[in-house]
Structure formats: structure tokens, C-alpha cells
């Protein structure tokens, strides 16, 4: 993920790029204040620059789970990745929070800014087909335990047609988990992975993963430890931890085919432009 001068990317017309329409995929958390991102997405839409907005909603799901008395757990896998324990009740909470709280807020916010948006989940039109792992390993108090009721999965197949249909009309697709499996059962998938896989499937010009930190930090509490670039070697050790590992992994995969991939802060002016200009990672 190299630094690039993004001005020619954003002023698409001048570059004469042959990629399909210069679509970019922007992913936000769903917890952070989306105002600046929505401003920029609406602006791009008005200028005829296709943008796909992908969102997660971990914070909203956590809050709703607490309000409904649904147990929250984090699965720490042997390789150090953290993921949300997603039993059936938690899957329902996630679905409610993402589709029933975060997504409508983003669709409304875009309309308030004069853009037209269409909300989509991975289950719609078979956009994201996922497969769950029958048994996942979780490290708890030094023991390794197998969990079998997990309703999360990994994306196996992406059909970008529903997204393309929305883009063709000049509207903004607002996309999120959950996905569904081949039998129609909902599965939780990672929102960063969703954004990355969509970017690849759409042959997007750029993938921007916005987060609440300024970029990939070796010390999550110290913004000056931002890495301007990362490669696969950064995932080998303990350098990148927790949720950021998901982002880096997703970003690296996408960067094989997507020209510009950036991880940057959502809470700044014109976050998309700045991310692609190298302000993040």
C-alpha cells in the first residue's frame, strides 16, 4: 500500500484511466461520527464519482446487546486475532444494529446531503456468500477450547451485481454484513473483509478503510508510531494487534488488484482525499 498523490485519482476525468468508472470503496466503523465521510461521499456522488460506502457497527451492536441483555464475548484465537463471539442471539443483535440502526442513519444522512443512497446487506441478491467454520479455537485462561455455535463466517463468493445496479443509477450503495450461506442462513462476516472483497470484485480504483486512529500504529496509543506503509511481514509478529490485524490483512489482499489502498482516520476533514493522499497508511 504505497503513498500516492491521489489528486489525479479523484479528478478522475483528467487521467483517462481505463478502469470502470473509477469507483472507490470507503469503509467506516459505524461507531465514529460519520459526518465528514458523508459530506465527502455526497460530494463525490454529486460530481458523478461512484462511491461504495461499506460500514460495520461493532459499537452499536455492543450497546444494543447490553440493552437487550445478550452476552458479549471476544474470541481470542491462537494466532492472536480477536473476533466477536457470534452465537445466534448475538447474530440477531448484529443484524438489528447494522441493518436497523447504522445503515438507516447513513442512508438518511446521505439523502439529507442531497445524495440518493440504497442500503444493501450481504444477504441481498446473494451479494456475499459466506461459509462458517464448524469449529473455531478460542484461548481462555490458558486453555484452548473449541466453539461450535459460532455464526460467523468467511466470504467465499462476491456477486457485485446489486452494487453495480445501484451505482449505474448514480446512487450510493451502503453495504454491510451480514452475509448468508448457500442455504440462506445469515452469517456475520468482517466488515473490513467485506470492503476489500467488494473492491476487488468491482475492480475499484481505491479502497479506503477509515478508523478511529490515524493509520496503522505500532503503539495504538501513540499516533506518531504511524506506519506509512505495511506489507505482509508486519503481520508475522505482534507488531499489529487486535482489530487492526483484520484491516491490514484485508487491505493487503485487496492491494494485489486494487491500485490504492489506505487505512486512515475517519475523524478529520475530507478523510477520503487525505487518506488517499498518504495521510494514513
Amino acid at each position, binding site marked *: 500500500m504505497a503513498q500516492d498523490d491521489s489528486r489525479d485519482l479523484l479528478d478522475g476525468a483528467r487521467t483517462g484511466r481505463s478502469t470502470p468508472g473509477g469507483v472507490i470503496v470507503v469503509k467506516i466503523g459505524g461507531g465514529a461520527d460519520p459526518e465528514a465521510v458523508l459530506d465527502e461521499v455526497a460530494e463525490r456522488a454529486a460530481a458523478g464519482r461512484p462511491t461504495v460506502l461499506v460500514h460495520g457497527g461493532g459499537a452499536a451492536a455492543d450497546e444494543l446487546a447490553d440493552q437487550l441483555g445478550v452476552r458479549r464475548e471476544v474470541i481470542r484465537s491462537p494466532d492472536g486475532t480477536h473476533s466477536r463471539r457470534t452465537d445466534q442471539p448475538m447474530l440477531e443483535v448484529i443484524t438489528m444494529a447494522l441493518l436497523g440502526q447504522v445503515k438507516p442513519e447513513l442512508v438518511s444522512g446521505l439523502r439529507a446531503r442531497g445524495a440518493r443512497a440504497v442500503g444493501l446487506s450481504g444477504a441481498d441478491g446473494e451479494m456475499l456468500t459466506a461459509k462458517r467454520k464448524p469449529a473455531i479455537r478460542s484461548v481462555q485462561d490458558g486453555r484452548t477450547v473449541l466453539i461450535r455455535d459460532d455464526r460467523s463466517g*468467511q466470504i467465499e463468493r462476491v456477486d457485485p451485481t446489486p452494487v453495480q445496479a445501484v451505482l449505474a443509477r448514480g446512487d450510493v450503495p451502503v453495504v454491510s454484513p451480514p452475509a448468508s450461506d448457500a442455504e440462506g442462513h445469515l452469517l456475520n462476516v468482517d466488515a473490513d473483509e467485506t470492503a476489500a472483497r467488494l473492491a476487488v470484485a468491482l475492480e475499484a480504483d481505491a479502497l479506503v478503510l477509515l478508523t478511529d486512529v490515524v493509520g496503522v500504529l505500532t503503539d495504538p496509543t501513540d499516533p506518531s508510531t504511524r506506519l506509512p506503509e505495511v506489507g505482509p511481514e508486519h503481520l508475522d509478529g505482534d507488531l499489529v494487534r487486535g482489530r487492526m490485524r483484520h484491516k491490514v490483512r484485508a487491505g493487503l489482499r485487496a492491494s494485489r488488484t486494487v491500485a490504492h489502498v489506505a487505512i486512515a482516520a475517519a475523524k478529520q476533514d475530507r478523510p477520503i482525499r487525505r487518506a488517499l493522499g498518504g495521510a494514513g497508511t
Partner: protein
Amino acid sequence: MSVALSVQCPECAGAVPVSDELMVAEIVICQHCSSELEVVATGPVVLALAPEVEEDWGE
């Protein structure tokens, strides 16, 4: 109180020490053949070969 018991490894038949603190679905390693075993039941402890670790992220 931990009682010194062992159960046969389903793979190599070696003795695998088990305690009554083991939890169902817990993974234990057989020291003889290094297999990952799953505690399928307790009281008495029953072991089976644990499922394969699936590769993440395709490829």
C-alpha cells in the same frame, strides 16, 4: 483435588493424563504423537481427534 488419571489417545493409544478440571470442548495435546485432541465428554473423560485447523483467507 486433581486425581492422577489417564485416558488412551485415540490416535496412538498412548496415555494422556486427564484431570477432573477439564472442560468439554477443550483441546489437549497428546505428548506422544502431538495430535490435537478434543474433550468430547467428562465424567468419564472421552477424547477424540480434534477437527483440522482450517486455513484462514482461502489461498
